[in-house]
């Protein structure tokens, strides 16, 4: 791989990688069982430089911002490289947000350019807020011929001949603005520098290197910090190959493992659990004698891999299982949300290590990772090289808030000095997560100090952000909380949002009001929905400016209401 210490920016590192590994395959893109694109590093360079030149000719300058709004595909990475080549700042946006939310973030980021997939652009054009869009240049990928693009250009036609000028950036310059959450209320745009990414990449590849021939299956959205690092920057600076699938249907994902002989894949817990369900169902269908043999092989594998992973041994013992994953899989990488230890153990016992970690967008990608020496399903691993972690104000069990200091920690929140000051104190990032270290230096997470949930799909949801959906509810007042914030758990999991309802004095909770709440709740994407409600009999405590004192309210609720009183929606 490249020696990243030598580089001052992502653009320079990627530029050298394209030359160093020119003959290696860097990208494969498949739609179902049809392969659409296969590019070498040299092809990638030839495709991206005309785009960089066209951007420069359109007055896209150093430090200008360009947003990408696309599902995982080759044009995502090609566009990102062209942006970095031109000295731009990349703003990766979440394609799963609503068009209204995407427009809000686009405005907040002040992106000068938007690269967007046609179906997403079509939804944005239909949004009532569309007329407010201020983005100067819109490049639309895969638009049907003759489609109305409302002033946008076809990405495929937006290229110019002639070598573009490479624009060098310094380590402290901004590389990306990544939104960790906050679409409805207070957008949290994490401003990450080139140093953040270069150092994160060095730390991750020190433990889990890529090399030419490695194939990484990119399933997590590339706008997510994990896939951006392990599905783009990491593999590219090591000469490895990224495989994109245009569908996430389980049957095609399974085929892709085999067809492309995948080496690594990063998945959110929801998908890993789905894989587990599928495998368990297959095992249950086996005749009893085959099942007995399988159980013996699993027991033998467990014994032989107790101290460390031995993938070759596991492949020999459980060939059918490993063939189903292509036969070359070294590990499943997981993160972004709580993963049940039993699921990780299930895969490890089959000889497929699950590399579990912990991180947050504010800290680049990962702060800790499991090094598999030995495998531990009950922790999120040890701090990565260069990462310092502290437990603040530990209680008698050693549990306190985790604080992090590292070259991977973001510079600040975009246009929010107050939030930055609250979050980064004396150089330490206050994560809002609670945990402790065990005797072997592994971090064990136990809950959250902050009022938020992380879904099994890896999405951060802040209750304040979704409250506006319920505006106009005919009752005195309401408030949304993360259930685990009100009723702290000793461990992660069971995360849900609950709504506290305060009725008018003479009002009764009836089916009309319930239906009203249900209908409004359904306007939210499924992963953002409120899971339950309960009636609160007192007025909410408020500040002088009438903001709800959430912490005080949560404490009052905790003392008088049990979690069991929450009624499911």
């Amino acid at each position, binding site marked *: 791989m490249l020696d990243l210490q030598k580089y001052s920016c992502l653009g320079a590192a990627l530029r050298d990688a394209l030359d160093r590994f020119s003959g290696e395959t860097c990208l494969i893109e498949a739609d179902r069982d049809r392969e659409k694109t296969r590019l070498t590093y040299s092809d990638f360079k030839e495709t991206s430089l005309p785009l960089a030149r066209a951007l420069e000719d359109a007055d896209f300058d150093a430090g200008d911002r360009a947003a990408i709004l696309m*599902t995982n595909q080759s044009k995502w990475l090609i566009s990102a490289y062209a942006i970095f080549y031109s000295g731009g700042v990349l703003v990766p946006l979440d394609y*799963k947000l*609503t068009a209204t939310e995407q427009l809000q973030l686009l405005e907040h980021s002040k992106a000068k350019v938007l690269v967007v997939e046609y*179906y*997403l652009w079509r*939804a944005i054009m239909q949004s009532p807020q569309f007329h407010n869009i201020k983005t100067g240049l819109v490049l639309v990928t895969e638009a049907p011929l003759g489609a109305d693009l409302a002033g946008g250009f076809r990405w495929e036609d937006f290229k110019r001949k002639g070598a573009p000028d490479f624009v060098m950036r310094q380590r402290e310059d901004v590389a990306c603005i990544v939104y960790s959450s906050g679409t409805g209320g207070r957008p949290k745009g994490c401003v990450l520098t080139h140093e953040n990414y270069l150092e994160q990449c060095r730390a991750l590849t020190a433990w889990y290197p890529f090399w030419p021939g490695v194939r990484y299956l990119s399933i997590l959205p590339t706008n997510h910090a994990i896939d951006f690092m392990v599905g783009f920057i990491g593999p590219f600076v090591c000469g490895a190959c990224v495989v994109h699938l*245009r*569908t*996430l*249907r*389980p*049957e095609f994902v399974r085929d892709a493992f085999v067809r492309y002989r995948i080496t690594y894949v990063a998945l959110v817990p*929801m*998908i890993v659990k*789905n894989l587990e369900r599928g495998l368990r169902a297959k095992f249950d269908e086996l005749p009893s004698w085959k099942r007995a043999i399988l159980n013996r092989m699993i027991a033998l594998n467990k014994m032989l891999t107790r101290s460390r992973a031995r993938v070759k041994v596991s492949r020999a013992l459980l060939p059918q299982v490993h063939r189903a994953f292509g036969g070359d899989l070294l590990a499943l990488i997981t993160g972004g949300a709580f993963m049940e230890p039993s699921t990780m153990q299930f895969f490890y016992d089959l000889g497929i290590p699950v590399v579990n970690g912990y991180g947050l967008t504010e800290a680049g990608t990962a702060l800790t990772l499991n090094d598999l020496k030995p495998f531990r399903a009950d922790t999120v691993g040890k701090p990565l090289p260069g990462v310092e972690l502290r437990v603040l104000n530990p209680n008698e069990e050693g549990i306190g808030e985790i604080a992090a200091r590292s070259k991977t920690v973001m510079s600040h929140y975009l246009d929010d000095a107050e939030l930055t000051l609250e979050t980064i104190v004396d150089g330490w990032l206050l994560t809002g997560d609670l945990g402790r270290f065990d005797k072997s230096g592994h971090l064990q997470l136990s809950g959250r100090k902050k009022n938020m949930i992380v879904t*099994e*799909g890896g999405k951060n949801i802040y209750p304040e952000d979704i409250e506006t959906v319920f505006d106009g509810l005919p009752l005195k007042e309401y408030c949304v909380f993360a259930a685990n914030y009100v009723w702290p758990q000793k461990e992660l999991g069971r995360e849900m949002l609950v709504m506290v309802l305060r009725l008018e004095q003479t009002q009764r909770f009836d089916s009309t009001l319930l239906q009203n709440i249900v209908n409004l709740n*359904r306007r939210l*994407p*499924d*992963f953002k929905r409120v899971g339950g409600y309960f009636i609160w009999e007192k007025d909410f405590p408020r500040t002088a400016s009438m903001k709800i004192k959430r912490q005080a309210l949560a404490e009052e609720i905790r003392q008088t209401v049990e979690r069991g009183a929450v009624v499911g929606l």
Partner: protein
Amino acid sequence: MKAAEQTLDEILNLAAVHFKVPRENLSPDGDFFKALGIDSLQTLDLLTKLENHFRVELPDYELQGVSDFRTLAERIQARL
């Protein structure tokens, strides 16, 4: 071409059989995540069944933001 109501009815029947839920528990405007007890990944599975049934190709994004059977039926109807 099938009538829109017929498409909707066939989707409801198919979902009931595939996810082993009584047909009478499913309504056109009902939330299929809740009615079928499924997550977003399992809805992709439903999409595959619908493709095979209606013999059309439905990109994953056709499901984005959709949570009721009627809208799903409209998306499929547009591709028949």
